[in-house]
């Protein structure tokens, strides 16, 4: 629903005339008159107020009883008193009541010094105690989860954490047990509260009842410093505040930005700071010497890299990804293009640079808050909680509070299905056909053909088109689409230009081009995918999508390395063996490459095995520079700690390297790199570090920026040609990849929120590091005689990965899903499109055998014993908690399947 436009009214508070928006809650409106009304339970981020703590009682003339300011909308002419004797008495009463059972163990409480209960007791309490009775006791502290400790004696039962779990993250795990003074917060059956956003309850807690276990007893507020920056662990780019003590990051807090994160963080963003100080991190330059990487001096590392790259002039390619800043991408593309005679750069493997350019048009961009106020939101080919977690919460908020109509179109069942008015499934590999089919359904073309190719129900596709077209309803006229936001996974664009064409066509058909509050929003694979591309790290494009000489894309670079046309590769915060879809191809390419230079924080497989020189990369706590959010917001990174050990600023490393290659980049400070970048990218015009400040700027919404965007060229294949190309001739199981027809299953992949090196090395998060599992429909599991939890191998063509069977009630039949981005057994070693499953324990002989010989296996399985256990109930994947059995011993049992069950299937 569109944003409301409030009326300004005047009310009186403690004798002051104050202007405020009508219906603002009194507690907020009071602040406009510099009046603070104390609160505990009130937190607008959690939705409607509950009025439970009674701390905010005020007197309103004309109303006999005192009213809770947190739940009273301000009206014109209202006369409010917050300081008179009656209100003071009530405030003292509430503070006294809150303290009667509070242990007052402030000296040993983590919250001490930054505790609202302390502050409010001081500011509004009576200052004396009349309570001589024994206090309420609970066992304490207990592990609510491996990440959170709960002290129930300190709890003042403000409901915030429970409301978060129930109404914001919707994991429905936290509840209140018992009644009255015996009430306590917990989970059903005391299983650990493990969920993607659980850590937010620590920040929400107004007392020391919920504390961070990794931070517990590490510092006091007066020991710490802090700095605001941006989290670079995923494209959400949440704004964070880092707590620092002695040059170590000890904690990450949300730095609320309504345009980006709404004040929430995911647990990866909140706890992965430990990875900054992990032993596994690369903190000194390394050079391959005698087959192994050894730490060396900067001089030697820079010298060797420069001389090798210089020797291979014209045969150097580069890939960038991850948290590469705009400046780093800009500088590396300068080095490759200006000093090394190369044009082969890519940061979006498999995606045509032209498509990125076309979809980056400012008039197509939706912003993050638009998700909250649109008439309709379509989640297309992405699982937000895994790919851009914080957006998941924003979508839920829109649906819950503003009645946004949500449609989900994915191949894998989505955790948002329960919130969606319509969920449509298509087969993995059918993405392009699906999107072109949707375009056809909106415009009125052939829908059945693409739907068949996409492996999706044509009627569902038509319903989706209808829903998008009519979201705003019509007042006496024909219904219109209104504000539609399409959140699409950029991976949809892989392999064909048809998808980008179709998306533009859909946007045109829904009339959302240039429409305020509507548009497209991409979920890139890399944190700064958008910024890296805009900085010129694409084949055929210089900075700012200015067309330049042609170059090879990622696949071409791999080919070139394998063929020997290219000899050196520059890896900027990316490891193609981990991050690309084709691990074997890249393994061969890196093997063949004569020289590999990498900027890396961790020695992931590709870097460890193939890099000749590794430059230690900065973490986001150390880095300065800018990132560009998927919605076009340029945001500033600011260092909060000094660089660890030998780590140097990467702009400086690049400047030094360029100098050794006889290119003077002229970058003597981080800010100079930003200045160069802004000069080179026309639509960043007017952006300065000062202007970015703490909140950034959305260039598609700024005047000089949006005007300066270079018009994308027409697709050479033409719209229809590209669309036709997007519709594959087959959608079934014809191309069998060497797998028998009988046992063959379509392979789909996904990357979990927890699939990252930071999770693997951060001690607190290790227990969440995903292990490979194969998601399969109950019918397929039965047909193939595999049981939930069984160890199997999955693969074809002689390549397999080990996995554990995970039966999902609403998984599509004929398709399995495997994870990518994990350290062991990532699905990107498999070629697909079809795979088969072989039980590992039961038929060991089949493992590694040519798949075709395993023909009879699934068939004969029918005679075997029927699986003894029924398939386990469906669990919401996004809130997947089954990895917890690797958790610290404090957690009893695995909390699997506790998350909410979106479709009630079992």
């Amino acid at each position, binding site marked *: 629903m569109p944003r409301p436009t409030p009326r300004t009214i005047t009310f009186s508070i403690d004798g002051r005339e104050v202007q405020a928006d009508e219906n603002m809650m009194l507690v907020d409106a009071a602040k406009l008159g510099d009046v603070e009304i104390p609160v505990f339970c009130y937190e607008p981020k959690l939705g409607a107020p509950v009025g*439970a703590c009674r701390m905010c009682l005020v007197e309103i003339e004309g109303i006999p009883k005192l009213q809770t300011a947190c739940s009273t909308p301000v009206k014109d002419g209202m006369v409010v008193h917050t300081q008179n004797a009656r209100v003071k008495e*009530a405030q003292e*009463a*509430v503070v006294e*009541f809150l303290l009667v059972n509070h242990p007052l163990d402030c000296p040993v409480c983590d919250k001490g010094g930054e505790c609202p209960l302390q502050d409010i007791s001081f500011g509004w309490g009576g200052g004396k105690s009349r309570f001589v009775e024994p206090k309420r006791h609970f066992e304490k502290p207990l592990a609510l989860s491996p990440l959170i400790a709960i002290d129930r004696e300190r709890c003042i*039962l403000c409901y915030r954490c429970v409301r978060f779990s129930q109404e914001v993250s919707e994991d429905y795990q936290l509840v209140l047990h018992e*009644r*009255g*003074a015996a009430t306590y917060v917990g989970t059903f059956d005391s299983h650990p509260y493990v969920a993607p956003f659980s850590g937010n309850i620590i920040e929400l807690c107004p007392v020391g009842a919920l504390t961070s276990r990794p931070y517990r007893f590490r510092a006091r507020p007066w020991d710490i410093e802090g700095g605001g920056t941006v989290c670079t662990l995923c494209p959400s780019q949440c704004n964070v505040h880092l707590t620092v003590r002695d040059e170590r990051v000890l904690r990450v807090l949300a730095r609320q930005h309504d345009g980006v994160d709404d004040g929430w963080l995911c647990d990866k963003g909140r706890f992965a700071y430990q990875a900054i100080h992990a032993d596994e991190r690369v903190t000194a330059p390394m050079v391959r010497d005698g087959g192994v990487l050894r730490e060396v001096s900067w001089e030697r590392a820079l010298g060797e890299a420069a001389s090798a790259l210089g020797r291979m002039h014209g045969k150097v390619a580069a890939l960038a990804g991850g948290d590469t800043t705009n400046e780093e991408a800009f500088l590396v593309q300068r080095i490759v293009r200006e000093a090394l005679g190369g044009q082969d750069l890519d940061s979006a493997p498999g995606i045509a640079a032209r498509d990125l350019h076309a979809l980056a048009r400012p008039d197509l961009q939706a912003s993050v808050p638009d998700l909250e106020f649109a008439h309709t939101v379509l989640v297309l080919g992405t699982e937000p909680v895994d790919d851009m977690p914080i957006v998941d919460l924003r979508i839920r908020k829109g649906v819950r509070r503003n009645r946004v109509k949500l449609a989900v179109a994915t191949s894998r069942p989505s955790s948002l299905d329960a919130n969606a008015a319509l969920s449509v499934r298509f087969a993995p590999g059918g993405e392009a056909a699906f999107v072109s089919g949707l375009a056809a359904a909106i415009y009125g073309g052939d829908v059945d053909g693409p739907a068949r190719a996409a492996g999706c129900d044509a009627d569902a596709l038509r319903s989706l088109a209808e829903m998008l077209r009519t979201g705003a309803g019509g007042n006496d006229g024909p219904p219109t689409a209104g504000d539609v936001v399409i959140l699409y996974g950029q991976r949809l664009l892989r392999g064909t230009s048809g998808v980008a064409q179709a998306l533009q066509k859909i946007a045109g058909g829904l009339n959302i081009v240039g429409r305020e509050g509507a548009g497209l929003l991409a979920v890139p694979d890399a944190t700064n995918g958008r910024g890296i591309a805009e900085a010129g790290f694409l084949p055929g494009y210089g900075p700012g999508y200015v067309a330049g000489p042609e170059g090879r894309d990622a696949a071409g670079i791999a080919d070139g390395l394998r063929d020997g046309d290219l000899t050196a590769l520059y890896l900027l915060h990316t490891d193609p063996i981990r991050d690309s879809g084709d691990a074997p191809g890249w393994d061969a390419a890196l093997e063949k490459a004569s020289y590999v230079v990498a900027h890396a924080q961790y020695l992931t497989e590709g870097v460890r095995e193939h890099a000749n020189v590794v430059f230690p990369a900065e973490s986001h706590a150390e880095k300065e520079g800018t990132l560009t959010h998927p919605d076009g917001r340029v945001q500033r990174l600011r260092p909060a700690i000094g660089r660890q050990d030998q780590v140097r600023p990467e702009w400086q490393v690049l400047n030094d390297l360029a100098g050794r290659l006889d290119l003077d980049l002229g970058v003597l400070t981080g800010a100079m790199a930003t200045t160069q970048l802004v000069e080179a990218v026309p639509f960043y015009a007017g952006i300065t570090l000062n202007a970015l400040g703490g909140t950034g700027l959305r260039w598609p919404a700024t005047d000089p920026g949006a005007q300066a965007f270079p018009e994308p060229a027409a697709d050479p294949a033409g719209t229809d040609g590209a669309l036709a190309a997007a519709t594959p001739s087959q959608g079934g199981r014809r191309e069998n990849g060497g797998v028998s027809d009988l046992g063959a299953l379509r392979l789909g992949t996904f990357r979990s929120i927890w699939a990252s090196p930071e999770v693997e090395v951060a001690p607190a998060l290790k227990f969440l590091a995903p292990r490979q599992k194969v998601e399969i429909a109950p019918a397929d599991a039965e047909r193939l005689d595999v049981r939930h939890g069984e160890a199997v191998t999955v693969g074809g063509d002689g390549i397999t990965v080990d996995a554990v069977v995970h039966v999902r009630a609403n998984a599509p039949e004929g398709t399995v899903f495997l994870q990518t981005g994990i350290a062991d057994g990532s699905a990107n070693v498999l070629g697909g499109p079809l795979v088969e499953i072989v039980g590992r324990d039961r038929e060991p002989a089949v493992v590694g055998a040519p798949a075709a010989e395993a023909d009879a296996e699934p068939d004969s399985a029918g005679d075997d014993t029927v699986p003894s256990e029924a398939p386990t109930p469906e669990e919401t994947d996004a809130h997947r908690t089954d990895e917890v059995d690797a958790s610290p011993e404090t957690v009893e049992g695995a909390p699997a399947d506790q998350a909410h069950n979106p479709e009630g299937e079992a």
Partner: protein
Amino acid sequence: MSANLIFHNIDEPGLNTLEVFQRRGGYGDRLKKALQMPREALVEELKASGLRGRGGAGFSMGMKASFMPKGAMDKYLVCNADESEPGTFKDRELMQKIPHLLIEGMIIGAYAAGANQSFIFIRGEYAQQADILEAAIDEAKAAGLIGKNILGSGFDLQMWVHRGAGAYICGEETALLDALEGKRGNPRLKPPFPANQGLYQGPTLINNVETLATTPFIVEMGGAEYAKIGVQNSTGTKLISISGHVQRPGNYEIELGMKSRDIIYGLAGGPGEGRSVKLWFPGGSSSPVLTGDDLDLSYDFDTLAKAGTMLGSGAIIVADDTTSVVDVALKTAEFYKHESCGKCTPCREGTTWTVKMLQRIKSGEATPMDLDIIASVCERIIGNCLCVLGDAMAMPVGSMVKKFRGEFEEYIEARREESERALLASVGAVA
């Protein structure tokens, strides 16, 4: 003077069946008349009757029905049959013996509210009454009195019985709605009031069993005629439950405005031989107590309010002069402490604290200063809570401490000396 309207023929065998109830005039012309009236006219009749809610708050039923918004939307009627206030057992007898009267009242109430769906939220302990109601609803359904096009009026109504899980707080109307929705039964913030956003966020009229069961008579007699019963601002008859130290405890129907003494002594026979009334709760255990000096008060809403208490649910609990006020206070406080939902601070902490102090008085560890603290804690609860449960403890306990302060002080002194002696004796025994 006792009256005979709702409880007319109450003990007739088989009155709980449709056949006997209809023979006695139920579901007859008065229901047809109600359903043929324009909705607004029916609401006007209810207003004119002066009928005030019989559940405890005493708000005009007609006014409440008139707050229901017009227009096509899902509206609900909910009957609050979570009769849990200590001392109150009138609805139980009503539902058990004349379930069809409640159903008829609900049809009328739902028609006045424009609701097509209705629920009876009955406390879980009333299993027998719930069974009876369900059987009665089945009978009424079979007879076409519930369902589509009732008596050819074009009015549709569905009706369900929902059994509560036994929490006192679910008698609070918004907690009841949460519980009915399948949530934890916690009171909601008001506003919004149920008439605007009640069950499933839809407009909802909630009334007590007795209130709804009165409406057929109002339709039958006409609002103005009904208003002639009773006294000004307290019209009609009232079911009262008398318990405690009286010789004939039970349910009685009275005309409002009867003298309290006539109820306690006349109807219920008063305390036993040689005893006198020490204190009495006029309207359930949440009403501030009155003493033997207050027996000449007229039993109506306004008079009792003027005396600093309330008519509440019409449950009179009598304690005679053999009763210790400390026991009454502790018993009362313990009940509300146990039933506090824990959502808001003053009630959750205040009731617990009060109980702890009263227990200390009992065990001889208190001083008269604790009486000041109890009084102050009670004052600090009243008016500061999310719902009225906190007040329901603070008002009677506060009133007892105020009215019987002397007895409390004597008790404290006596128990202190006693416990000191016991302590000395135990020390002596050891030495």
